[in-house]
């Protein structure tokens, strides 16, 4: 073989290898990212917890459209399949897909004596509100869907809801928590996860009821919509319980928690409550350990039961209190499609090889609510606009028992069309990092370690 030929081959090989490596590298920034640490789902406005390390899958009924007179219900789903929120978007997609797969395996949705399968078509919100709105518009105009399952994260949901209003399209989101969504009073949008102000308030109350009752709290939060709402809800819970709020501080993402901790330690509260994203939880706990700041307990909403928090905080994660609305060990009645939370967890584990979190569960619950609403509506697919309008009335009156909890949507007030009926759970991490439900009393499956041991006693 000639030298010239060898050189050309080597050059071609190097070019190919280089191009491949560059593609791998840039994939993470353009679409292969994900979130949960510093670019976490909640950092963009809250979207529920997303732990574990599973990747996105392509299972489920997302095949092509069948056009008019079809023999299946066709739902659109807008979620982030690329960009910073890809990880959370994937969790949401798994929730929707697991619902669709299970419905189809069980013979479909029975309406008027006929059974109809479910098909989901996806639109990529690319982790950006504007892209989410564009994707939703395109999907509605081109796919002739009967209803839409909502996007991941509150910010994207806030951009997508107006599109649903403009198109009079029934829409249930399984993973958005900002109170702003429901305060807007969107007629066509519903949500299965209670707003963060409810979750933080209820779990905060459960924490303040632990013995010995806290007399003072120090509240901090990251100054972003989701985290700020969380911290404010914690403050309201403390004030309602007659507990003194020694300080309420909001600070930007990336602040040095040495100063936060030094100030808090100087104030000497019984409890430290924090609203933020997982990265901020980790930084707060690490700084507390370094500066030997030991109140009776730390509570972070949300995400303490995620792998990202446990991996980031290491041994310091033990004993942290947190909030969630669902765990596989939660005492929920079960109901449509899955008999119990543990049955759902087993199904999710079998399908995706990872434990589901409350975002995934809430997303599956959103599908179940549509399933029951379709039955109650009694119209065969495809739904006409009159059917869709009627579906809104059905959703407003529906009550569904699910593995996730009882779903019933508010029909007035600041939580308009939000399901605020699912009980929030106070959890605490054990030494090994596993979450235990410790409140409220009627849901607790174990005793809280409270006051938590000081850093020197661990």
């Amino acid at each position, binding site marked *: 073989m000639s030298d010239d030929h060898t050189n050309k081959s080597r050059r071609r090989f190097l070019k190919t290898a280089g191009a491949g490596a560059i593609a791998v590298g840039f994939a993470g920034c353009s679409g292969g990212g994900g979130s949960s*640490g510093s670019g976490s789902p909640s950092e963009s406005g809250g979207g529920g917890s997303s732990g574990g390390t599973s990747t996105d899958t392509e299972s489920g009924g997302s095949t092509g459209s069948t056009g008019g007179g079809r023999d299946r219900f066709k739902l659109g789903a807008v979620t982030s399949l690329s960009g910073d929120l890809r990880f959370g978007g994937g969790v949401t997609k798994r929730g929707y897909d697991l619902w669709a797969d299970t419905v189809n395996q069980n013979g479909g949705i029975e309406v008027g004596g006929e059974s109809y399968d479910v098909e989901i078509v996806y639109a990529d919100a690319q982790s950006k509100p504007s892209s989410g709105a564009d994707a939703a518009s395109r999907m509605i105009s081109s796919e002739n869907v009967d209803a839409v399952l909502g996007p991941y994260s509150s910010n994207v949901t806030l951009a997508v809801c107006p599109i649903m209003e403009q198109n009079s399209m029934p829409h249930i989101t399984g993973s958005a928590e900002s109170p702003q969504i429901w305060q807007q009073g969107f007629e066509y949008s519903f949500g299965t996860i209670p707003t963060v102000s409810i979750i933080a308030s209820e779990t905060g109350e459960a924490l303040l009821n632990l013995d010995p009752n806290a007399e003072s709290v120090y509240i901090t939060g990251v100054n972003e919509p989701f985290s700020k709402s969380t911290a404010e809800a914690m403050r309201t819970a403390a004030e309602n319980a007659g507990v003194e709020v020694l300080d309420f*501080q909001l600070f930007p993402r990336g602040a040095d928690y*040495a100063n936060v901790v030094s*100030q808090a330690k100087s104030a000497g509260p019984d409890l430290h409550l924090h609203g933020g994203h997982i990265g901020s939880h980790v930084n707060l706990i690490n700084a507390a350990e370094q500066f030997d700041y030991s109140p009776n307990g730390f509570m972070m909403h949300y995400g303490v039961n995620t792998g990202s928090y446990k991996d980031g905080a290491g041994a310091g994660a033990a004993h942290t209190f947190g909030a969630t609305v669902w765990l596989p060990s939660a005492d929920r009645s079960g109901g449509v499609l899955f008999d119990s939370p543990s049955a759902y967890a087993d199904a999710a584990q079998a399908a995706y090889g990872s434990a589901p979190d409350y975002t995934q569960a809430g997303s599956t619950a959103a599908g179940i609510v549509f399933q029951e609403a379709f039955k109650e509506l009694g119209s065969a697919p495809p739904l006409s606009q009159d059917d869709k309008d009627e579906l809104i009335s059905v959703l407003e009156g529906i009550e569904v028992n699910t593995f996730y909890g009882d779903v019933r949507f508010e029909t007035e007030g600041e939580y308009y069309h939000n399901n605020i009926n699912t009980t929030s759970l106070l959890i605490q991490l054990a030494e090994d990092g596993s979450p235990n439900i410790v409140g409220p009393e009627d849901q607790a499956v174990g005793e809280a370690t409270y006051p938590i041991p000081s850093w020197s006693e661990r």
Partner: protein
Amino acid sequence: MVETGLLIQTIVNGLLLGGIYVTVGVGFSLAFGVLEVVDFAVGEYVMLGAILGGLAAPLLGSEGVFVIPFVLVGFFVLGFFVQPLIHHVTTGDRPQPLLMGLVFTFGLATFFRGTVLTVLGPNNRDVPSSLLQGSLTVPSVGIFPYVRAATAVFGVVALAAFMYYLYNTKGGMAIRAIAEDRTNARLMGIKINRYQSIAYGSYAALTAAAGVFIGMVFTANPGMGLQYTAFAFFMVVLAGMGYLPGVILSGIVLGLTQSLTAVYASSQVVLLVLFALIYVVLLVSPAGILGKGEWAS
């Protein structure tokens, strides 16, 4: 009324934070001074070091400190081979070498971050260290967490070592000659490619090692780099572009400003105050606080 204990602890926190910034600023200042490359990838070297600390520490008895020698060697080699690429795009007949360097290192940063995100995912990672666990409490002064103190000491020692190398060795003299005038240095027989690679390799090694320390102080995650890129820029502007001895002072000024502003004004205005500080320094003394760097232009 200002509580004395909190004030002193805030000053301690500021000094320790400044020490952490010094670890990043030293290498960046070296790269700028010698190679005239404004390296957008500086924060990503910090991130890579921290992530590797998180991955390797469990294999080395859960001790992040033991990872540092491997990171120093590994990143020196990486930097040594990356530098010729930077040299390639910033020389020759290209019209705007500074811009080319910026664009190339920006791409490098994106590539590093993307690779980590794709391969490892977005989660936080703990960089454990039992050697640096705990803190020293000095009565009437405050608490000194060992890990933060060690990070600050590392930065100062690294700076001293670089200064010694630059001003007391033949290789250091060659690097300074290159920084002074690349063409004349080449005419004097200095192998500028090799020394530039040594300088960039040293910068990458030091910055990644700083990343291991920073991972131990905070945590490691793929998105952490950008913050350190911004602070590295703050550091060199305050220190005086390319003026290494100014790095300690600029680190202290940045750390103290950040801490005191957060505690006695508001955490919300920390970045505003820092930007205002940089703006004033650029207006009043474009060659840095000590007036000994290159003019920012």
